[in-house]
């Protein structure tokens, strides 16, 4: 026994006996330690984990059983669905109606126009996501300003007349320019403006405009031969209308919001108070009251014979509403620009408009991009309200389906499909906003 004393009270020579080895330290990585740390760290924690995962399992199983195992995938009406399976989902209905969810009652033979519009928009916007394309602001501006001109004719159709031909051809021209620019920059690395300068010696803005105008005229001549069948807006519907309303809403809201926000910060009392009143009124009332106002009061304001499309009225209401909200977003961005910036600009002798457009706004807008996107998500969700005033957006089409004679009473399945579509759109945008926010904030540091 080491450490004990022998009978003579002297310490015996201690013999070295190694202690028992300690157990190896707990592994810190791998599945089991992870679970021990995050799921079973205490007794209470373990009980919670077990109970909750049991409940979750039951819920998930029920959903799977209802939605997949017992579900019916092909049937012509609700009765057939119920004959096949009483307590499963009936996906046959939404499957048959899916095209209507997307296009509304847009005639089937004309739906390619909606698709074409979507493709054009996607191609037009695509260069913005390439780092090599430098002419981003002209591209973005051309989309915002001229895509609606082209798309409105594409979707609505009918007789064009000279004016409408010229206007919609301008959109098409700008689309061609943007594509050409993207192609040039992605292959050669120079923007179309630079190429015009270097190759053809078109240095001034006026000279550059000449080939564009020539192209415009050429496009207009070709375009005037095309006449599309008219599709009245009562037939528009589904996700298409949702995107039309929210798209126009956001494109209008941004410039209008900027003007309102600048007006609100103005030193001129009249302008300031007009803007304050507009912003505060529209921000303090619910959107549905604005929509009701547009449907009931606008006809009283218009001169005789002028009628306003129902869709157009809804769009006007959404635009006014969105502008007020955007104004507050912009104001937030303007406030975050340090005061030294406009002061420095003033010291350099820049006037109000130059200071605003060259110094303050670019910095503010960059900071605002995530907020603008989240505002757009809100608008995208809010457009469902137009279903209340009788338009057939995505939600309106879903409601229409559960009132259809073949599918009457089928409520949950179409709503789930719609919820899924909205979720995908909003979630993707919110993720994009988050990643942008991170990217922009690291740039600022």
């Amino acid at each position, binding site marked *: 026994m080491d450490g004990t004393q022998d009978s003579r009270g002297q310490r015996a020579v201690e013999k070295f006996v190694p202690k028992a080895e300690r157990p190896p330290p707990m592994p810190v990585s791998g599945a089991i330690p992870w679970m021990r740390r*995050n*799921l079973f*760290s205490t007794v209470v*924690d373990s009980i*919670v*984990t077990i109970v*909750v*995962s049991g409940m*979750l399992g039951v819920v998930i199983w029920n959903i799977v059983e209802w939605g997949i195992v017992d579900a019916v995938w092909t049937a012509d009406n609700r009765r057939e669905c119920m004959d096949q399976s009483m307590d499963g989902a009936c996906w046959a209905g939404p499957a048959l109606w899916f095209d209507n969810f997307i296009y509304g009652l847009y005639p089937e033979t004309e739906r390619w126009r909606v698709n074409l519009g979507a493709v054009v928009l996607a191609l037009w916007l695509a260069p913005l996501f390439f780092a090599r394309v430098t002419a981003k602001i002209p591209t973005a501006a051309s989309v915002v300003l001229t895509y609606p001109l082209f798309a409105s004719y594409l979707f609505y159709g009918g007789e064009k007349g000279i004016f409408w031909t010229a206007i919609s051809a301008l959109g098409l021209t700008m689309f061609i320019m943007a594509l050409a620019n993207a192609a040039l920059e992605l292959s050669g690395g120079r923007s179309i403006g630079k190429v015009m300068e270097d190759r053809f010696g078109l240095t001034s803005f006026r000279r550059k405009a000449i080939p564009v105008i020539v192209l415009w005229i050429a496009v207009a001549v070709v375009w005037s031969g095309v006449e599309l069948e008219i599709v009245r807006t009562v037939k528009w519907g589904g996700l298409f209308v949702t995107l039309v309303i929210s798209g126009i809403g956001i494109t209008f809201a941004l410039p209008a919001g900027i003007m309102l926000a600048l007006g609100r910060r103005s*030193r*001129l*009392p*009249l*302008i300031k108070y*007009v803007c304050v009143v507009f912003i*505060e*009124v529209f*921000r*303090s*009332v*619910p959107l*549905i*009251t604005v929509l*009701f*106002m547009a449907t*009931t*009061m606008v*006809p*009283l*304001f*218009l*001169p*005789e014979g002028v009628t306003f499309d129902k869709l157009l009225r809804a769009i006007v209401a959404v635009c006014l509403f969105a502008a007020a909200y955007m104004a507050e977003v912009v104001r937030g961005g303007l406030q975050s620009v340090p005061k030294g910036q406009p002061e420095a600009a003033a010291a350099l002798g820049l006037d109000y408009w130059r200071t605003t457009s060259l110094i303050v706004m670019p910095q503010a807008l960059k900071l605002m991009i995530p907020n603008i996107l989240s505002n757009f*998500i809100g608008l995208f*969700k*809010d457009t*469902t*309200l137009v*279903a*209340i005033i009788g338009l057939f957006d995505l*939600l309106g089409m879903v*409601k229409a389906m*559960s009132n259809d004679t073949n599918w009457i009473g089928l*409520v*949950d399945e179409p*709503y789930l499909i*719609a*919820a899924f579509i*909205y*979720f995908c759109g*909003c*979630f993707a945008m*919110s993720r994009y906003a988050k990643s942008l926010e991170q990217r922009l904030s690291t740039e600022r540091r």
Partner: protein
Amino acid sequence: MSTSAPPRSQRSQFSRLVSDPKARGLFAQAVVGAILIFSIWYLYSQTVYNMEKRGLTAGFDFLWTTAGFDIGFHMIDYSPTDTFSRVFLVGIINTLFVSAIAIVLATLLGFIVGIARLSSNWLIARIAATYVEFIRNTPLLLQILVWYGGVFTLLPPPRQSLEFGFGAFALNNRALLLPAPIDEGLFWITVLAFVAGVILTFGIARRARLLREATGEAPKWGWKALTLIVVLPGVVYLLTGLPLSWDVPALSGFNFQGGFAVTPPFLALVLALTIYTSTFIAEIVRAGILSVGKGQTEAAHSLGLPATRTLKLVIIPQAMRAIIPPLISQYLNIVKNSSLGVAIAYPDLVAVWMQTSLNQAGRAIEIVATTMLFYMTVSLTISSLLNIYNRRVQLKER
């Protein structure tokens, strides 16, 4: 005017005027004012003309005429023979009632979910995060319609009601039935005792705070508060001879009689508003708690404060400063979003006033204006309260 250049002095005066910011400001304002006046005049005259043509009249006299329609859910007495002004009142009360209940429930649920998102248990945190992402990214109106059309109208009919709480509660496709309290005359004394208890508790809390600030002693007053708020009214209730009785709903024939019936639209609206807003509140709570720096917790621990007191005295007071302003704007959103009840025929202000009354009375301008006025009043009241709060919090800061 001739094409030749004006005399030099005149010209420089003009150019001086152009470059003078004051003059330019006045000019811009004059232009805006002129446009404003013109458009108001134009809209006014156009509206007057249109209304004359259609034989419409203006004015608020319709408020005192009989409405003639029934309202499915009202908190105050209402019958179809009542006037439009009564309808307006019923709508306002319905809006505020549904909003108040949704505000309380959404705050509770939001705080629970927000704290759950910060849970150290991975499963709980993930479930909370999934809940938030899924609910937040789908439109509120869709959720309202799902709750209404997909849940409450698919419940069994009254004869096969789901009953719980030993038959005191019943849920069917027409209503949720709750037992209704009936006052037999002396209940006001209990209410009075309760109010007195609350006021006295405030006094005690204040004195305790002053004492603590003056001397550093922290007297315990929790049990006093409990006595005053719970025991005192309870004793008074017993002494006055149990003045409340409960009217329990009972099935008779095809429907329930008695009790307090809450209609499916109300339930659907409250649930949807609660769940939708709770996700936003959860994010606010989470951000608020995360906004308190880690150093605060560490400093509190190094001073020897245990975890619960750290939370109560250090984290929560600082987090509340970041939580309350956006929380209040969520409350405002609840009031505004309650107007979506119109889609499922919940008789809120928009439904009974902007829809039914507008169709019946036809006074579009008056009705739209009063509705907007109501919402603006609510909004301005809440935002001014918020400003007062912000000012108080900021004073403490520095």
